């Protein structure tokens, strides 16, 4: 009744609409660039990223394009080498969270309602924990392990996936064609494979993209707090914490990794937002 009175959204002008529907090429290119830099950077460092080569906090010059860091290591080499762990850990955490969330969400939708509610409630109990607390506690349990960070990222982000995917699967299971499939005697497995999974792929993709944003956020923070594999290996998050005390002496050693982290998280975040918009609109 009310929707007839006013549209929920003020319709944009056609020109603006088409601009928003255009694929985000610039954003995609920027994301690709920074991810490639992170992944391939370790292959082409000008110097060893862990060797002490000069006095600490040297100004940028020919030999060291970004100067040297708190221990006199080459900042440019460390910047090139410091993104891979973050990207790979975040991807591994997202994959693990996606798998757990998908399995738990679909399971909760397929079993009886009471059992499903119970499962979701257990998962909700986990969601009470601040994600960072999970990371810190797991890191205390497994000191210096990268797997702990992956597990913590998965554990911290999976509860949301479970909820979202259960809701998505519930909608599919309540639809007419699933009823028809069941009526003609399809097994649960066939319904799962041919009806549920293909139809929740869209929401699952969006959800995974949003988890990746959270995952990058947590992984970088874990690096900053010195959790996960320690030692001298470069890591953008840790570089910020190492070089922040010398910020007055040299800005590049902590600004370069900080700005790269901004670029990475903002690009991935905006892309995920666009994806959610597009898929959400397509489904509506």
């Amino acid at each position, binding site marked *: 009744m009310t929707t007839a009175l006013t549209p929920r959204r003020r319709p944009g002008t056609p020109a603006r609409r088409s601009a928003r529907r255009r694929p985000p090429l610039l954003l995609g290119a920027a994301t690709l660039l920074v991810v490639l830099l992170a992944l391939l950077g370790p292959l082409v460092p000008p110097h060893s990223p862990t060797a002490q080569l000069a006095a600490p906090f040297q100004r940028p010059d020919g030999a060291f394009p970004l100067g040297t860091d708190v221990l006199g290591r080459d900042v440019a080499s460390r910047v090139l080498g410091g993104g891979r762990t973050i990207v790979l850990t975040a991807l591994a955490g997202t994959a693990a969270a996606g798998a757990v969330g998908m399995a738990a969400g679909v399971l909760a939708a397929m079993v009886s309602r009471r059992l499903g509610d119970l499962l979701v409630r257990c998962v909700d109990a986990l969601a*009470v924990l601040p994600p960072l607390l999970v990371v810190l*506690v797991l890191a205390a*349990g497994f000191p210096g392990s990268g797997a702990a960070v992956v597990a913590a990222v998965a554990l911290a982000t999976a509860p949301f996936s479970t909820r979202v995917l259960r809701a998505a699967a519930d909608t599919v299971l309540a639809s007419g064609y699933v009823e028809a499939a069941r009526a003609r005697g399809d097994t649960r497995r066939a319904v799962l494979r041919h009806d549920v999974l293909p139809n929740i792929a869209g929401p699952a993709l969006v959800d995974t993209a949003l988890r990746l944003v959270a995952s990058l956020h947590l992984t970088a923070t874990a690096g*900053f707090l010195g959790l996960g594999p320690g030692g001298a290996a470069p890591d953008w998050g840790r570089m910020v914490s190492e070089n922040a005390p010398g*910020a007055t002496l040299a800005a590049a050693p902590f600004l370069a990794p900080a700005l790269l982290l901004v670029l990475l998280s903002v690009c991935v*975040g905006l892309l995920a937002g666009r994806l959610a918009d597009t898929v959400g609109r397509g489904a509506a």
Partner: protein
Amino acid sequence: MNLLAFAGRRLAGAAVLLVLLSAAVFAVTAVLPGDAVSAVAGVDASAAQRADVRAGLGLDRPAAERYAAWAADAVRGDLGHGFVGERPVTDILATRLPNSLLLAGLTLAVTAPLATLLGLWTGLRGGGTADRVVSTGAQVLAAIPEFVVAALLVAVLAVWAGVLPRVSVVPLGGTPLDAPRALVLPVLTLSAVGLAVATRLLRVSVADAAATPYCEAARLGGVRGIRLAVRHVLPNAAGPAVQALTLTTGALVGSAVVVENVFDYPGIGRELQLAVAARDVPMVQGIATALVAVMLLVLLLGDVCARLIGAREGHGR
């Protein structure tokens, strides 16, 4: 009466959850390989020394028994002693937690009104330019890790402009209120992050409230602008808004841990990170359990507030 019963039931639920989660924390820190023994005895201790330390710490007993003993003490207000410096965990909580709560309180005082304003402004103009700019800005800000936001603020305000201290140096034995300048950067960082989270949540509740028949009727009756926002939209959006702010406060618990570490702020998050770095297991258990309790309390308060607002408006269940 109904509200009391509701609060009681929620309180019981939260208590059960606290027990379960503290057991989980205990299990992860006490049973898994991050063994407290090597943290205390040193890496190159002999097997006999390790066995001694193990027995001294009571680690030779079964984990369930240890948890029961720990929980029984915890109920009586004794969370044990940290390994490092033998400090009682409750002392640390008593001195550091208020500092963190101060930080959270100030942040909330900045965030809540600003987020309400921005939420109203954008929610009432769904789809407009202002809405898109603010929403995208919030999305961008929410994606950036807190420590990067903090580092950039430090770079601009403390290093280049030189107007604020880079770390929060608090006089020995004093509270952060004795050095108000030290609070500015941490509160600013947390507020920026909290604002990004809260604005997005509030925008949704405002947009929902603005679409109700009630607001529609008011708008058709010629009510506009601030009057529409304050008299008609805000009361309707208040319930979900309180829950949005609750969620933001919950998220602040995690952000505060990071921000305290950036600025060396003497809060509970800083202690937690130090304890994790030193593998001080009792300290990690105590602080993590306390933080979970704070979190549950915040959620409980948010639920009760939302319920109160709902009851007053007459659409509580």
